[in-house]
Each structure stands twice: as C-alpha cells, then as structure tokens.
C-alpha cells in the first residue's frame, strides 16, 4: 500500500517560492489502478515523483508498505526503488542499448545472474509482444513499441507497483488503447498496483479503479472512478470529465437531467424506451458516450417537458438503474 500523508513540495525560485504541491494525502490500496488526473501544471508529475522520492517532498511522509521513504538510508531507498517500476511520457530508453539490453538494465543493477536474467528478458519481451525486436535499437522502434520496451524494463524486477507518468500522452489513440490494455493485463494478471498520471479522462475511464483529481497543487476530490465520474463535485472535475456539458447547460433554459452511463446498462436503447414507455418527447442537449469492452460509458443531458411527466421519467430511469442527476 502506498500512503502519502500531508505532502508538500515547495521550490525556491528567484521571485519567492513556488508551491508545487500542498497538503496532499492519498492512500493507494494494493491491486488498484489509481488515476491522478489534472491539467498541465497542476503538480501531478511532481506528485508521482514523490512516491519513489525522485523528488523529495518538502514536508510530509511517503509510506510504502508502512516504511517511510523520507527517513530511510540512501542504500535502502535504492532497494525500495527497485520494487517500484516507472514509465514515462518520453519512454526514456537507453538509446545506445538494444531492446534486450534495455530490459537487462535493472537486472544488471540488481546483480541478477546472467542465465536467470536471460530467461527473464525473454519472458518479459513475450509479455509485451516484442520478442522479435530483442536485437533492435530504440531508434528503430515506433512510439508504442518503445513504451512496451519501457514497460518490460519497468517490470523486470517483479515490482509490486508501477508508476506511469503520462505514459500514453505521446501516443496516437490506437496505440494508447493497446498500451492501456497491456497495463490492465499487468494489473489483473501480475497483480501489480498501478498509479496512472494523466490529463486525459479516457485513460482514467478505461483502466482506473480509483481517481484523484488534482488542481492548483491540491487534491480537488478523490474516490472510486464510478462515483467521481458520475457525480463530479469540484469545478475542475466537472471540467475534466464533462468539458462541453457546462456550456451546453448554460445555453438553454428549462429543466434538465444528466444521465450517467458507467458500463452497467450495456446497449439498452434508453432514450427510445423512455420516449415510448413514458410518452414524452425528450430533447438531447448533449451526449458524449463511448463503448469499451461492450459497455457504454459517458454522459447525456436531456431536457424535460415541464409538468407532471417529470416524475414519470424519473421513476422510469430509477427502474432501469440509470444514474441521473438534475442539473440547473
């Protein structure tokens, strides 16, 4: 378990101090895929670096399985870091090493015997689907392939945790999906706890179990993805999750309902059913839904006819287990 307790990070600068993080407390349970989402400059990259102490927090405690990293000796810190894999937006592969030599690096550092290392490398390249690229150099690979090598390298020492700093931000949408699927597989099959830093909502939607929204160096809100996704409370969360929604709400008058699809009701044609069963014509003001693994995620805002029909509609939605919220 990773526990951050009252983390602050302040950088000295020419004109006073720059506060990068302020009073951040988070608990990342084992087995979770924990998303930390925020706009650029919010402090999320600094935050993830505090977990393995690449950045030393100005104050606060970083507990990894109960051990406070801010208090351990340097040698012990290096050992702990070997149990926390990390991947980056710009991949950060050793350009002068082949793919297999990149994956071998952490094994060399940990002095794993040659034969054992060789078997482990083969296993890891198999896992990320790059067995045929073992002898290639990073400059010969595509972005997605580079990130796969980085993942294999990060997993070489069987870490319990994997930190992903904007790992898909430099990739195209298709490649992003395949990398996210790989991360999900690693979480489910190898039981690695994953921390995902991102500014993209779809990353959180598709693989995270928990999410913390960070804004202006602070945690704006956190919780289970379904909850935060369905009922964002903070302004920043609303903006990240439903960017166009707020505008569409402001532009029209009347009563509106926001329906939340979080993968439960599959492909049921809710709106048609609503129109037919309740006998009301609803106007769709805004819709942003997408399907993943055969489930539908997203939001829809409908305007309601005034009058007694309102209760009928709400009753219908409750009956169908659709999460909804009245928006003004």
């Amino acid at each position, binding site marked *: 378990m990773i526990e951050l307790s009252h983390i602050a990070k302040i950088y000295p600068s020419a004109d006073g101090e720059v506060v990068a993080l302020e009073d951040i407390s988070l608990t990342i349970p084992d087995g979770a895929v924990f998303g930390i989402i925020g706009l650029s400059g919010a402090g999320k990259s600094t935050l993830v670096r505090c977990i393995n102490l690449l950045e030393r927090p100005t104050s606060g405690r970083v507990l990894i399985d109960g051990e406070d990293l801010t208090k351990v000796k340097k040698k012990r810190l290096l050992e702990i*870091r070997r149990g926390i894999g990390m991947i980056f937006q*710009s991949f950060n592969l050793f350009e002068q090493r082949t793919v297999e030599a990149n994956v071998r690096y952490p094994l060399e550092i940990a002095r794993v015997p040659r034969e054992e290392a060789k078997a482990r490398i083969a296993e890891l390249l198999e896992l990320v689907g790059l067995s045929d690229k073992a002898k290639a150099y990073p400059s010969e690979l595509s972005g997605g392939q580079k990130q796969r090598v980085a993942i294999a390298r990060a997993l070489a020492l069987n870490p319990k945790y994997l930190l992903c700093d904007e790992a898909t931000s430099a990739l195209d949408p298709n490649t992003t999906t395949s990398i996210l699927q790989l991360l999900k597989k690693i979480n489910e099959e190898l039981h690695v706890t994953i921390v995902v830093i991102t500014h993209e909502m779809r990353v959180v939607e598709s693989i995270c179990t928990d999410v913390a929204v960070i804004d202006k160096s602070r945690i704006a809100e956190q919780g289970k993805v379904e909850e935060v996704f369905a009922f964002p409370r903070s302004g920043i969360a609303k903006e990240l999750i439903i960017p166009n929604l707020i505008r569409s709400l402001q532009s029209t008058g009347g009563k509106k309902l926001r329906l939340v699809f979080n993968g439960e009701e599959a492909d049921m044609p809710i709106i048609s059913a609503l129109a037919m069963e309740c006998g009301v014509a609803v106007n769709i003001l805004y819709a942003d839904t997408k399907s993943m693994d055969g489930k539908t995620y997203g939001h829809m805002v409908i305007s309601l006819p005034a009058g007694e029909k309102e209760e009928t509609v709400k009753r219908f939605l409750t009956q169908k287990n659709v999460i909804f919220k009245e928006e003004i």
Partner: protein
Amino acid sequence: MDTLLLSKLFSQLGASGFLEGLGITLYHTVVSAAFAYLLGLPLGILLCVTDKGGIRPIVWLNKIVGFLVNILRSIPFIILMVALIPAARAIVGTSIGDEAMIFMLIVAATPYVARMVESSVKEVDKGVIEAARAMGTGTLGIICKVLIPEAKPSLIVGAVISTVTIIGYSAMAGTIAGGGLGAIAVTQARTSNAQDVIWLCVALIVILVQVIQEGGMYLAKRLDRRICRRHKTRKINEKE
C-alpha cells in the same frame, strides 16, 4: 611535388628525418592525449555530476574545479609552456625532451578535455537519467552505466577534436622542448629558411589531422545507435 624536389628535400634532412619527426609528433600526441583523458574524463564527469542540476550537486566543489579549469584554459599555450618550465624541472627532472614536452601537453590538454567531456556528458537526456534513478541506480552506477555509454559517440567526437588540438600544441611545444614535425619546421625556418622543408612538415601535419579527424568521426558514427542503424537500413532499401 615532383620527385626532384622530394629527393632534394630528403637529401637535406633524409626521408627518415621526416618519418622520425612524424613518429615523435604522433608519440607525443597519443601519450599526452591518453594521460589528458585519464585525468580529464573524471574531471569532466565531476564537473557535470556536481553541477547545480546534476545527479549529485556539490556546488562548492564544482565552483572550485570549474575555476581552476578556466584559469588553465585561459592562459595561451605558448605562455603556459614557458611558465611550466620550472614545474617540469621539478616533476620530470628536465625542461627539455620528450618527458618535459608530454608533461606540458598534459597540463594544457587536461582542462580542455575536461570541458569537452563535460559538454558531452551534459547532452545525455535528463529523462534517461531519471529512469535510471527510478530503477534504483546509485550515483556511480549512473556514471558508469548511463552517462558514459550514452554519451559515447559524443565523447569520441570530443576526443577527435581534443587530439587535433593536442597535435597543434605539440607542434608549438616542439619549439621549446624539442622534437617532432613542429620542431623540424621551426628549426629549418630559422637556420636555412628552407621553405620546402617547412611545407612538407605542414603537409604531414595536415595529413595526420585529416586521418584522425575522418577516422574518429567514422568511428563515432559507426558506434552511434541513434543514427547508424537507420542509415544502414536506408542504404539496404535503396539497393532494393
């Protein structure tokens, strides 16, 4: 250059004289470059590692070493050489001959090499270093397993430039401490104003520099995994 001129030249000094000069210049250059790297490589790495944004910032040490390096670098070689005569006597026991000359070349080249190494090592991607730190690499590990291997092509280019500079220095040093192509050219110019001898020395130095420059650059390119492979594949594709 026709054969008549060549034979005239060789009668003055003998072919072996030029070859010997070339050999001495090469010997001075190689030995002092080797020593300059033995000292300059760790110094350059120290300058990079202890710098403010380095992997182990030790600002006071960085400032002191940087200052010393700058002082040695700012003294023109010809003056440094004269200034080093007493030091040469004290350390190698003489102020003339191969030992004295190599000593002076090492003193002049080491700070130069240190700056060359520093700039090469600084080019290594910060992200790659960060990844190595995240994987639990200590300072020494990062130097040996990341900084030097990743900067290798750039270090070779730096070594080529340094070696060429040392050849230049060695020709100059020849005037004081003796030996090598520089000494031959200068002596001949003083005593008999033999233009042809001077130009032959110049030609030999030019060839030597060309060989080192081209050979070194070829090696640097061959060993650089960021570009070399891609060029190779492109060539193969073109053939097809």
